[in-house]
């Protein structure tokens, strides 16, 4: 099955038509899903920013990195899963439009880079976290924090821009 055929198939599913308002008799499903997506994504970005700002030694300096991570990151993952579910539902309603949209693609590129950055940090600098857990963070941790912050800001910008270009 080609990608175009797959996208067309996704778009023709009953649930996709319902979100578009064609079969559900209401125009409100998409705005409601979009609002839930915004609620989830703000929690993702807000909670990641707390950890990133701590890695940059710009906030929460009274908390160790590992304690802050334990406190915050479970919420980040929960919110990320919610954002992904609602985002997928929005995607399904106009799959071929979104798949071909430049801003949409750039958004996912940035999320991929954010994931890569996280993995490099988690299995690199973070393995020695005990050495700098409560004090000044090493350059590698600062770079990871700054990159994460910038990439998530880009994800929000491209995401908002999708709404203006589709």
């Amino acid at each position, binding site marked *: 099955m080609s990608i175009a055929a797959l996208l067309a198939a996704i778009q023709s599913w009953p649930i996709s038509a319902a979100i578009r308002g064609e079969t559900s008799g209401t125009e*409100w499903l998409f*705005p409601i899903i*979009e*609002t839930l997506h*915004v*609620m989830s*994504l*703000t*929690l*993702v*970005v*807000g*909670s990641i*920013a*707390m950890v990133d700002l701590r890695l940059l030694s710009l*906030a*929460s300096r*009274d*908390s160790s990195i590992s*304690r*802050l991570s*334990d*406190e*915050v990151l*479970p*919420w980040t993952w929960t919110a990320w899963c919610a954002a992904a579910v609602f985002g997928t539902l929005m995607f399904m309603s106009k799959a071929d439009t979104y798949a071909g949209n430049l801003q949409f693609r750039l958004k996912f590129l940035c999320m991929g880079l954010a994931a890569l950055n996280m993995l490099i940090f988690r299995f690199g600098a973070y393995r020695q976290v005990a050495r700098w857990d409560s004090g000044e963070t090493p350059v590698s941790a600062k770079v990871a924090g700054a990159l994460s912050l910038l990439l998530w*800001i880009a994800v*929000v*910008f491209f995401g*908002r*821009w999708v709404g*203006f270009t589709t």
Partner: protein
Amino acid sequence: MFRPFADWLANTPLSKILQDQSWVVPTSQSIHILAVSIVFGSACMLNLRLLGVGHSGRSVSQLSNTLVPWMWRGLAVLLFTGFIQTVAEPVRQFVTPMFWTKMMLIIVVATMTVLYAKAVRRNAPVWDAASSRPARAKVFAILSTLLWLAIIVCGRFIAYTWSFYA
């Protein structure tokens, strides 16, 4: 009754400048969402702590001292970007009850947060110990979370309701 004012504002030179630059509103909205992330993310972390949900790393007063100032910074950015969006598209904002409801809810939640922060500053040890924490801590936590959720709903629904009233 706000319609004549909106029409007048839309014809001011500043509004015309903002309308002519097609990047202004999407950029402002993206920054607005990033600021929502800071404010809503901080509010949720604080409120979950007050409700005793999740990993309790820092004390209530420690968390408040870190997060409440970030909430005010975020709110300042929200007011500025909201102002830009209102000057650029005054009719869109002023005709829908969603906008006015949102403004009223912001005043309520901001007032509540000021009072909360004052109470914690005045008597940190009482608020830090779960046994002596006033019962209104949980009321504040639930109300503030619900208010921020309602504010996000109103904000997103301005876009979907204004054309009914214009």
